[in-house]
């Protein structure tokens, strides 16, 4: 365990740690583009320079290991001067098209320019023009002019996705990133290259030009695309969600996430959502629809009631609704709607799993707790002979991974009364007539809860934002279905503490947080 001194602070690190990693430990800031903790060391950007005592020249921190008693400094004038000139080299051919560039606002080059910028260029030569708007593949667009050749994306395709589509071509200042001939950047992890690009050279076709990043707020969550449960950040504003990016978690996903997980924001947005509840063909508020469905549930007794669950909800919600069914409705007819049992165990070796539900383990755990052993054949038989009259379904949130949705819907709609809870719109569902209740549900970004991933790791998710505020969680729906009322948590009113006792009280109100945040720019 070598000890070193970084900017006067003593830090103890593991054997074989590079200086840049030691600086992450000590919390010192250091400029870096090409170094990425999840990739190999390339040492091409030459910006992470430090001064080591006893060494006449500055060294790069990413490729120098810490040794016992090393005295490292990156705040001296010498280092600052080196970074400044290094940055000048990076900016020689880099266009200043920040108004067009999607990375503006979260660009490393912009940040460094503000800190160390050499504001007067000393180049007499014109910039080298490279290719703009190069279509690399189905998901990514390249702007070679903005590229600073850190080679992070190239190393990503070599080391992580192991697909080797990208390469550096030509020499000197004519070097460009490109795909090998006839090999578009088309793999299941391609959008990670956009994440790790320190400038705006690689941009995602999906997010491109849709929103400036400084209008977005972010919140931590867990991806519900598959049973891996990657840790994510969702970026949203009052118009809805715009993108999803991975968050580092060594236990689960490391630095990466797959492209299909990044689409999870689409079914959360308002245009894809059910907004109004439907009770026997009449539109009403979701809560009212659930309340009206409770009357039917009251009139049908015991084993005539069945519950169908998909593995897309949180443990707490399963707990609440199964408890209601077992204790209030006295039925143990709870069925697990499995979407693709054959491929559940498949795994692509990196992150993506065949089980496209975030919480299969959690559902099985709760079902086991209540001693539920019913199988789908029981349900089919019950529906066929008419012994099951009322079916409550917690339908899929991510409908894309339920290919046999319509068949199952047809089968379940054989029941006399069908109470369907779901977040997203579906034409086949809203076309149903007769005794059908449709209750809009909240999605994973709109509620607190727990997901249990494939390895049994429990991950808490927190509410990020409200997209459809009137929608219900399964917990709330379970209360309403059993005929109870919702207990609304009383928020502490927004009120000054120094109010006179005789003053007329204003109605508690919440300030518009988007307006608040504007000042922080």
């Amino acid at each position, binding site marked *: 365990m070598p000890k070193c001194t970084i900017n006067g602070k003593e830090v103890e690190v593991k054997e074989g740690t590079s200086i840049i990693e030691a600086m992450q430990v000590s919390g010192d800031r250091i400029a870096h583009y090409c170094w990425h903790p999840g990739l190999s060391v390339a040492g091409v950007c030459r910006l992470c320079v430090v001064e080591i005592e006893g060494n006449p020249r500055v060294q790069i921190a990413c490729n120098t290991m810490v040794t016992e008693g090393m005295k490292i400094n990156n705040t001296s004038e010498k280092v600052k001067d080196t970074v400044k000139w290094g940055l000048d080299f990076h900016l020689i051919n880099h266009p*200043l*098209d*920040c*108004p*067009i560039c999607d990375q*503006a606002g979260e660009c490393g080059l912009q940040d460094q320019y503000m800190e160390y910028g050499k504001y007067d260029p000393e180049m007499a*030569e*014109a*910039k080298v*023009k490279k290719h*703009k*708007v190069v279509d690399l593949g189905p998901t990514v667009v390249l702007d070679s002019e903005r590229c600073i050749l850190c080679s992070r994306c190239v190393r990503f395709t070599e080391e992580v996705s192991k697909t080797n589509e990208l390469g550096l071509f030509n020499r000197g200042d004519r070097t460009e990133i490109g795909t090998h001939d006839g090999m578009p950047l088309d793999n299941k992890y391609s959008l990670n290259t956009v994440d790790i690009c320190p400038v705006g050279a690689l941009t995602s076709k999906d997010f*491109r*030009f*849709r929103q*400036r990043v*400084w*209008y977005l707020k972010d919140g931590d969550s867990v991806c519900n695309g598959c049973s891996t449960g990657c840790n994510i950040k969702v970026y949203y504003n009052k118009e809805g969600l715009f993108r999803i990016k991975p968050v580092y978690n060594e236990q689960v996903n490391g630095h990466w996430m797959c492209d299909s997980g990044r689409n999870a924001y689409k079914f959360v947005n308002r245009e894809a959502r059910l907004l109004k509840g439907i009770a026997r063909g009449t539109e009403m508020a979701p809560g009212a629809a659930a309340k009206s469905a409770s009357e039917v549930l009251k009139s049908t007794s015991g084993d005539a009631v069945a519950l169908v669950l998909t593995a897309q909800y949180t443990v707490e919600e399963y707990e609440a609704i199964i408890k209601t069914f077992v204790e209030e409705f006295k039925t143990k007819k709870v069925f697990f709607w499995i979407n693709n049992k054959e491929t559940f165990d498949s795994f692509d070796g990196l992150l993506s799993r065949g089980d496209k539900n975030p919480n299969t383990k959690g559902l099985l755990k709760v079902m086991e707790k209540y001693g539920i052993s019913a199988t789908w054949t029981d349900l089919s038989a019950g529906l066929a002979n008419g012994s099951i009259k009322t079916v409550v379904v917690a339908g899929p949130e991510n409908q894309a991974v339920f290919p046999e949705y319509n068949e199952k819907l047809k089968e379940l709609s054989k029941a006399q009364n069908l109470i369907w809870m779901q977040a997203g719109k579906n034409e086949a569902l809203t076309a149903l007539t007769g005794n059908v209740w449709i209750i809009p549900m909240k999605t994973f970004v709109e509620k607190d809860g727990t997901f249990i991933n494939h390895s049994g790791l429990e991950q808490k998710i927190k509410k990020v934002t409200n997209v459809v505020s009137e929608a219900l969680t399964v917990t709330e729906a379970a209360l309403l279905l059993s005929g109870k009322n919702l207990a609304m948590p009383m928020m502490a009113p927004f009120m000054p503490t120094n109010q006179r006792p005789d003053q007329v009280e204003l109605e508690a109100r919440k300030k518009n947080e988007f307006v608040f945040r504007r000042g922080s*720019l």
Partner: protein
Amino acid sequence: MSVMQNNSEKSKWYLPGVLGGLSVTMKHMVGNLLNRKKMMTLNYPEQMNDYSPRFKGNHVLTVKKDGSLRCTACMLCATNCPAECIKIVAAEHNDPAVEKFPIAYEIDILRCVFCGFCEEACPVDAIRLGPEWQTPALNGGQFIYDINHLAYRPNLKGGIQTHVDDEERHKQGI
């Protein structure tokens, strides 16, 4: 913003200033009473007062030489706008040299405070505050200026060209 304060002894003598101002008013009043033919009046709206060229009136979106919009939809004006009256929707342009352009650019002129921050924030000289100031309308909808009005309204005669041209900038290697 820095606030300047003049704390000198002299600044406490306000009365001479007040009286000086009053004397100008009195001079005009007496002059107008005695010589009504030469009274300074304007028969508005037939006669109009020309404001200084620095006057900040209604917005103009500038155009390039080919007549297309100069704006790149970078949203800096919308970000900087204290009244939050600018709304822009960006889209990808077919021409790779242009790359990004606004498909909608709306200013809610009733909210606008004509502070000129949008003009200052614009990195490409795409928005300016023009000299127009008489802009009545019959209903609220007409106070939301869209691209068509901002860049190509009749009295702009085909649009105002920017002095910053993309192609020229590109040739110079900027």
